């Protein structure tokens, strides 16, 4: 459908006027509620209690979602909400990486609260329009677009024809439609999803923003957990925001001088050191592809192995040549780390847009590892094109990749065959089959629909329909809590197994990435050391999502003198920057310890939210054995020397004259036991019972002993 048709068919069904309002110290003090079913539009005040306990961003999202749902609400009930918020620091332009938006909803994959962050302009523009958060509730009969006009102070709900449109087209069309002229396009932010979100449980939310230099729209994604699926289920086609422009002091910080000073210091550090450190400005996060391979951490063939002889074909150097260089690719104003790379003028070889030349955002590391090595695909153009289709169709790349890797292994094990897949030969490395699968998801057809359910549901389906062995599927199906694993191989790092397993939303590495610290550096040898790391890092990193920061400028660049500090892994100077920036915006005077406590409050709230929804206990923190050790003989034998040595060193077990099966059994028992011991230590450190429930004492200590939380604790302890 073209824009002209949409425009003609647009029907205004509700308009709401509100007073424009200046932001004070990072907050507007007000949130926006829109019910797309009843067309109710409301403003809500943000109380001091909400600010104190929940800060903003993901904290606000979880708070409003908790109020909106009950224990029995499911993801596709009208009561479910999608909440979007940036946080008090979100929207400043002085410090790199300050424009993130956090999205929270009940997930179709996990049935629990999901949180996912995205770059782009939406969160900051929402605040500039006068709102600290946006709650979307209800379910519309027909497709709607919500338009927040932060220039005039109006909010409208417009009915549009029921038809799915892919994001690279739709985002551009909406930007065009709502901007007054070319100059105004930078003032438009859009969220929407693509054609596959309706047919799968892994729909993502695209954040479209206008790239002035490229004269075209760009995309960033809130990828994880099926938020786009919820969005389409509500019949929301898009939310569009328009602002009057972006100024450096829009947040009215209390101390602009300090903000400027810290910002300038950080920009200089990036300018001087990025080229000799992570080359984020040159290639973005894809810089680590070959590093992961060299340390046996690059997921290959559904996480069987950590390296492959063909990785050089998809190394960062290869992608560097494909990505447009010397472009300030920030996803928010003022981000000099500028990692939001794109390959321009890429000619598509498959699908409905075959032959068209497009700009492809990325590749980020996750995409290259997931769509590449994990599927046995070592063709950089195929990876870029799969990446493009994931984005425009509205599919979470990580889930798509991990699910496809899973069905490829099922295919190679005879659980699937051509008859069951409708003719798709899903062997590792089959590029054609991977493309057909993704296009089927867009069309809502064939085996793509089954795969789109997610690994958890596929496992049940394959057992029921094909008589597959449930134990084998649960060993190799790389999901936990219903969410697919992100793209690192954690087998040789117990701490990272915890970094994936002992999380709130499921196995995404945004809580903790401890592999080097644990496996290579051996800095956290005891259970207590690992538990301390699994306390500190998840709490520290949760904080980014409360205030509106991107985590990359924290540790993808380090000051020159970082090596001389006591705890270089924490990058102490950057931690202090964050404390100072937060204080300079809000006028608070927190220190680095209070920063952790702010996160702990929200983290424990989320854990109890999971428990309230029937999940979030010890049993839900278990992970598939593929994440912990070799499931198959092929895996064991490929790293036999390593595993044999471990049997001797850790267990005093002599591997001589033993069969591979015997050795695998002993190793498995050992590793499962280690994970249980780690779980004990982490729960203890976090102040939880041995069943993983936060205690009343812990909540009291944090000042988080809210009656609704204590009630959940009482029921479950």
């Amino acid at each position, binding site marked *: 459908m073209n824009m002209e048709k949409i425009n003609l068919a647009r029907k205004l069904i509700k308009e709401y006027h509100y007073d424009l309002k200046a932001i004070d110290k990072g907050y507007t003090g007000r949130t926006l509620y829109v019910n797309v079913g009843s067309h109710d539009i409301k403003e809500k005040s943000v109380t001091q209690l909400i600010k104190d306990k929940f800060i903003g961003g993901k904290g606000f999202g979880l708070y409003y979602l908790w109020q909106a749902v009950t224990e029995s609400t499911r993801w596709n009930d009208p009561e479910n909400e999608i909440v979007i918020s940036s946080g008090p620091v979100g929207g400043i332009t002085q410090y790199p990486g300050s424009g993130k938006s956090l999205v929270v909803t009940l997930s179709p994959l996990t049935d629990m609260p999901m949180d996912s962050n995205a770059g782009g302009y939406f969160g900051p523009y929402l605040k500039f329009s006068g709102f600290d958060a946006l709650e979307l509730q209800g379910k519309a009969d027909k497709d709607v677009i919500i338009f927040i006009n932060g220039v005039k102070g109006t909010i409208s709900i417009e009915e549009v024809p029921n038809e799915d449109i892919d994001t690279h087209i739709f985002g551009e069309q909406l930007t065009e439609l709502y901007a007054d002229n070319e100059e105004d396009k930078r003032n438009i932010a859009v969220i929407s999803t693509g054609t596959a979100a309706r047919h799968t449980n892994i729909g993502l939310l695209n954040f479209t923003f206008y790239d002035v230099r490229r004269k075209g729209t760009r995309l960033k994604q809130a990828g994880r957990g099926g938020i786009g699926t919820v969005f389409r289920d509500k019949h929301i086609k898009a939310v569009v925001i328009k602002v009057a422009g972006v100024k450096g002091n829009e947040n009215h910080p209390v101390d602009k001088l300090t903000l400027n000073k810290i910002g300038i210091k950080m920009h200089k550090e990036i300018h001087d050191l990025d080229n000799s450190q992570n080359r984020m400005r040159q290639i973005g996060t894809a810089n680590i592809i070959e590093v992961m391979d060299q340390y046996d951490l690059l997921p290959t063939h559904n996480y069987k192995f950590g390296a492959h002889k063909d990785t050089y074909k998809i190394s960062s150097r290869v992608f560097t040549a494909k990505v447009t260089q010397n472009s300030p690719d920030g996803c928010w104003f003022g981000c000099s780390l500028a990692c939001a790379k794109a390959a321009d003028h890429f000619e598509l070889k498959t699908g409905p847009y075959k032959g068209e030349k497009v700009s492809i955002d990325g590749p980020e590391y996750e995409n290259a590892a997931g769509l590449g090595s994990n599927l046995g695909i070592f063709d950089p153009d195929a990876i870029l094109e799969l990446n493009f289709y994931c984005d425009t169709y509205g599919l979470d790349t990580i889930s798509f990749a991990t699910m496809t890797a899973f069905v490829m292994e099922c295919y190679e094990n005879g659980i699937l065959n051509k008859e069951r897949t409708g003719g798709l030969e899903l062997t590792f490395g089959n590029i054609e089959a991977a493309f057909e699968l993704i296009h089927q998801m867009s069309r809502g057809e064939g085996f793509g629909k089954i795969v789109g359910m997610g690994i958890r549901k596929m496992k049940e389906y394959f057992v029921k329909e094909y008589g597959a062995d449930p134990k084998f599927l649960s060993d190799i199906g790389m999901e936990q809590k219903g969410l697919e694993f992100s793209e690192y191989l954690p087998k040789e790092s117990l701490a990272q197994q915890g970094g994936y397993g002992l999380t709130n939303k499921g196995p995404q590495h945004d809580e903790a990435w401890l592999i*080097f*610290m644990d496996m290579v550096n051996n800095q956290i*040898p005891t259970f207590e050391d690992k538990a301390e790391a699994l306390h500190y890092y998840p709490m520290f990193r949760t904080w980014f999502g409360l205030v509106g920061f991107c985590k990359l400028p924290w540790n993808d660049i380090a000051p020159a003198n970082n090596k001389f500090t006591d705890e*270089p*892994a924490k990058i102490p100077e950057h931690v202090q920057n964050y404390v100072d920036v937060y204080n300079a915006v809000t006028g608070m005077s927190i220190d680095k310890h209070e920063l952790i406590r702010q996160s702990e409050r929200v983290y424990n709230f989320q854990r109890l939210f999971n428990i309230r929804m029937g999940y979030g206990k010890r049993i839900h923190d278990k992970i598939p054995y593929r994440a912990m050790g070799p499931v198959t003989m092929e895996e064991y034998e490929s790293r036999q020397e390593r595993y044999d040595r471990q049997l001797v060193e850790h267990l005093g077990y002599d591997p001589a004259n033993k069969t591979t099966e015997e050795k695998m059994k002993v190793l498995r028992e050992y590793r499962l036991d280690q994970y249980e011991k780690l779980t004990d230590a982490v729960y203890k450190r976090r102040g939880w019972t041995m069943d993983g429930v936060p205690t009343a004492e812990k909540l009291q200590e944090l000042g988080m002993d809210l009656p609704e939380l204590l009630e959940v604790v009482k029921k479950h302890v």
Partner: protein
Amino acid sequence: MIKLNNRDYECQDGITVEELMKLNNFTYARIIVYLNGEVVLPENYASTTIHHGDDVKAIHLMAGG
């Protein structure tokens, strides 16, 4: 025998930091090397030798992902 990242490690007496890094395939760009608690700067990797009983740490600075 030396200690490398708190593990016993067999290597030749007098090996340089550069050689040790190569032997272990420590290719990551952001590694801080400590020799008996003192930082060794990358420009000195080739000229700094390691002797039996030394305590070497090669700390890979990636806590992010």
